[in-house]
C-alpha cells in the first residue's frame, strides 16, 4: 500500500467519515472510496450496502477478486448524566472499545474523581455537544439523568442526526411524558419510536452494574443488528 493512500484513509477516519479500501487481489492495486463517492461508483449497490453494514469481504468479479475493507468511524458513546449507573458503565464501555464521554451540568455529580476512566464535561448538553463534535450516525446516546431539562437537550439533536442508538432511562410513565414533550417539539412518531425506553435489554437488571450491562448489550445488539439470529422459540416445557 502506498503511504499516501494510508494517509488519506487515516484522514477519513480522523474526520469520522466512512471509507472503503478496495484491493485488486490479483495485482495488489488499491484505491480508496470515500462514503460520499460510493454512489457514483460502478459497484455502488455493493459499496453502499457494505457501508451500511460495516462488513468487509471479498467480491468475485469477471476481472478478478476484489477485497473491500470497510472502515467505519469508531463508535462514540455520549452519556447524559454522571449518575451511579454511568459510573458502572464507563469502564465497561472502554473495554468494549466505545469512545465514551459523560456530560452532566450538575458539578457535584460530574467530577473526574467519580469517573477515572472517561472524560467528563460538567456543562449543559447544548454547550458540551459541540465540543464533542456533535452527533452523527456512528454515535450512541444514553440519557440517564431522569431530568427532562437535561436529557431533552441531547435527545432532540440525536434524533435529528440519526444516531444509531438512542436510549433514555425512565419508567413507562416517564417515557409517556417524554413522548408528549417531543411531539410538542414537532418530532414525528417514527423518530420517537427509535428511542429505546425503558432503556436496556430486558435482563431483569437491578443493580447499577446490571443496568449498565443491559444498556451496553442493547448498544452492541444495535451495532451488530445484521449479524443477529432470528429470535429462537423456546421448546415447550
Amino acid at each position: 500500500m502506498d503511504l499516501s493512500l494510508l494517509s488519506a484513509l487515516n484522514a477519513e477516519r480522523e474526520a469520522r467519515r466512512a471509507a472503503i479500501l478496495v484491493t485488486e487481489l490479483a495485482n495488489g492495486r488499491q484505491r480508496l472510496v470515500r462514503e460520499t463517492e460510493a454512489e457514483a461508483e460502478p459497484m455502488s449497490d455493493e459499496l453502499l450496502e457494505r457501508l451500511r453494514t460495516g462488513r468487509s469481504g471479498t467480491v468475485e468479479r469477471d476481472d478478478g477478486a476484489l477485497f473491500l475493507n470497510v472502515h467505519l468511524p469508531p463508535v462514540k458513546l455520549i452519556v447524559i448524566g454522571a449518575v451511579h449507573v454511568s459510573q458502572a458503565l464507563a469502564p465497561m464501555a472502554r473495554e468494549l472499545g466505545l469512545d465514551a464521554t459523560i456530560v452532566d451540568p450538575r458539578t457535584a455529580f460530574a467530577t473526574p474523581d467519580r469517573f477515572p476512566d472517561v472524560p467528563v464535561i460538567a456543562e449543559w448538553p447544548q454547550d458540551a455537544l459541540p465540543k464533542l463534535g456533535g452527533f452523527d450516525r456512528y454515535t450512541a446516546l444514553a440519557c440517564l439523568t431522569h431530568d427532562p431539562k437535561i436529557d431533552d437537550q441531547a435527545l432532540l439533536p440525536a434524533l435529528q442526526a440519526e444516531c444509531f442508538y438512542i436510549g433514555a432511562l425512565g419508567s413507562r410513565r416517564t417515557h409517556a411524558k417524554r413522548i408528549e414533550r417531543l411531539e410538542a417539539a414537532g418530532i414525528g412518531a417514527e423518530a420517537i419510536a427509535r428511542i429505546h425506553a425503558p432503556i436496556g435489554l430486558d435482563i431483569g437488571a437491578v443493580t447499577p452494574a446490571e443496568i449498565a450491562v443491559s444498556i451496553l448489550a442493547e448498544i452492541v445488539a444495535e451495532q451488530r443488528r445484521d449479524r443477529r439470529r432470528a429470535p429462537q422459540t423456546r421448546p415447550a416445557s
Partner: protein
Amino acid sequence: MLSTDSDILKAAEGWRREGRGVALATVIETWGSAPRPVGSHLVIDHDGNFLGSVSGGCVEGDVLTEAADAIEDGKPRMLEFGVADETAWRAGLSCGGRIKVYVEKLG
C-alpha cells in the same frame, strides 16, 4: 487497553514516516470459528515489532516471517491457515477455523 484498528493504522503511518520498513497484514477471509473478523490488521516493522492481531496469537509467528520477506522484496502475498494443513497445525490455529491473510509492504 486493546489497540483498535484505527490506532494500528495510525501507528503504521507513523512508523513508515520515521523511515522504518513496514508491512501490513489484513484478514481477507475466515471460515468457521476464526478469532479475528475480516478486515483486522496486524502491522509489522523491519525489526519485528508489531501491533494488532490477525488471529488472536495463533498464526502471528508465521505472519511476522512473511512480513519480513514482503518488506524485503516488496511483493504482496496471500497466506492461508487452517487446521487441515501442516503449516497451520504448526502455527496452531487450534480453534478449528481457517483464515486467509494478505500481507503487503507499506511503500
